[in-house]
């Protein structure tokens, strides 16, 4: 045996070598690996023994190959529609870049994809007009990540949700004061494509075409442990956003109206009752609260 290295030095070296995107040889020769154990590829046997059938580098490569293959496979399971849209080879290339830039720092694979959409945003070509192909991919990754978080995050199943009669019990003169308490799984998302339909089509093996861009305002939640999604109008979306931000209904309408084109006020008045019914039947809120009640 050669002079024994510290355990920490050996572990840092192994990690550098087997996670190098260009393979074991590049990993051994990298500056970061050589800072731990200063050897070249010809000296790997000083650290890793050979077997009767495989050399030291080949044995290390079992770990190197598995590292990216396993994590790309997991990322592909979390982002099946993004993978389908990109094709296997291109998806793997993006995944490799992502994991090289943002390696997992969590004990759980559930967090593996949490920065993937941001990676696509950060690497989006700046000279391509919006919205186009890269934005479609970004929207896809965002919605698939949201699905993953909603699926296994806190949900409404054991909490009970708002009923239409709960709203009817509010004195009419105090309706503007009510605050809607959203279910913990409720998410809003703006997209430039109907990515929710694309994801569903991929999950059902329907081989969808890339859709044309169109403003898509998504409400995503969970009911009976399955992720549910739907679209709403711009006015309803703005109102939901203001409510989720914690505004009372009256304040929320004002905030939402400010975000809408002039003359949209009538849209709120005309649709409020219908929206309330929908929110209650869709299970988007736990309850309404009145100050002082």
């Amino acid at each position, binding site marked *: *045996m*050669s002079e*024994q*290295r510290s*355990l*920490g030095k*050996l*572990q*840092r070296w*192994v*990690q550098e070598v*087997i*996670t190098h995107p260009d393979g074991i040889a590049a990993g051994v020769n990298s500056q970061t690996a050589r800072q731990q154990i200063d050897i070249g590829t010809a000296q790997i*046997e*000083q*650290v*890793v*023994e050979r077997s*009767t*059938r*495989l050399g030291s580098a*080949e*044995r*290390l490569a*079992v*770990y190197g*190959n*598995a*590292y990216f*293959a*396993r*994590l790309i*496979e*997991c990322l592909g*399971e*979390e982002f*099946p529609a993004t993978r389908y849209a990109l094709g296997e080879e291109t998806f793997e290339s993006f995944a490799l870049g992502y994991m090289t830039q943002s*390696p*997992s*720092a969590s*004990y*759980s*694979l*559930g967090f*593996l994809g949490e920065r993937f959409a941001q990676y696509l945003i950060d690497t989006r070509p700046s000279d391509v007009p919006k919205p186009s192909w890269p934005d479609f991919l970004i929207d896809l990754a965002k919605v698939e990540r949201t*699905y*993953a978080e909603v*699926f*296994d*995050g*806190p*949900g409404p199943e054991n909490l009970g949700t708002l009923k239409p009669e709960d709203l009817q019990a509010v004195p009419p003169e105090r309706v503007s004061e009510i605050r809607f308490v959203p279910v*913990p799984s409720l998410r809003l998302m703006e997209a430039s494509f109907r990515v929710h339909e694309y*994801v*569903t089509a991929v999950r059902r093996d329907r081989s969808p075409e890339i859709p044309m861009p169109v403003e898509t305002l998504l409400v995503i939640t969970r009911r009976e*442990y*399955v*992720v*549910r*999604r739907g679209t709403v109008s711009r006015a309803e979306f703005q109102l939901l956003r203001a409510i989720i931000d914690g505004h009372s209904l009256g304040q929320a309408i004002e905030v939402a109206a400010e975000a809408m084109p002039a003359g949209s006020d009538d849209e709120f008045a005309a649709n409020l009752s219908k929206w309330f019914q929908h929110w209650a039947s869709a299970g988007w809120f736990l309850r309404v609260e009145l100050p002082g009640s």
Partner: protein
Amino acid sequence: MTEARLGLPDLGFGVGLRTTHYPHILKNKPDVDWFEIISENYMDSGGRPRHVLEQIVEQYKVVMHGVSLSIGSTDPLDFDYLAKLRALADWTKAAWISDHVCWTGVNGLNGHDLLPLPYNEETLQHVVSRIKTVQDFLERPLVLENPTTYVTFTDSTMSEWDFVTRMAEESDCGLLLDVNNVYVSCFNHDLDPEDFIRSLPHERIVQFHLAGHTDCGTHIIDTHDNFVVDKVWELYRLAHKLTGGVSTLLEWDAQIPDFDVVHGEVLKARDLIRDGDTALPKRAARDTAADRSATVPQPAVFVAAEVE
């Protein structure tokens, strides 16, 4: 003298709980002795995995098996992780908590693989000290599994079985003997798997793992995607004889077949013990790497979302 299995019960013949089998288990309530869960898949779950587990623990005994404790890492122990592990064990009334004699990353990273350690005095003292800390924190013994390994280090000064024996005795932990891993690692390192199994402290073995693997010719990869091979059954029979029998668990993590196939595979272990020395389980005619998409070790299991 150490009490057999550290006084922990022999649960019988269990199966690793996987999401693809949720509907079958909930609907049919199969006659399985116990389930092993991947701890990390439930520690943070607020959704369907947790909901299913609630129903499982009402009807079955459960053991927790982790893949991210990283007991051999030189990074500090993650006490937030350990707190979640303890909370999950309390909630599920887990019969015990297991993980692996390995490390999964340093510098705050996790490669989600079970990486090998050099077997020497420095590593031994490091691992023993951490096991003691973890056991104190969890307020229960830790049960540690021999991982599959694909390399050995020149820094090693003792065999894996000597390391594991001293580790268990000095830290007073239990052992999970993965019989398939013994076979795979010994093939990869030109060692005799029977020597490995005979040299362990058998009274400390709390549980067995069985699984399938992929033979690549020059090496074997622990893919958990197939039936148990005959040579592993032979080693299992030896391990059973030496231990007097302990809880036995079948892992199947890739290309997972119907639940009855997986359950049937672990019941072959029961038949093997019952039928004595002569009979080996009949193998189903499914095989070869040719029908497999990727030859990748499968230490962790990803849970995919269900969307309408």
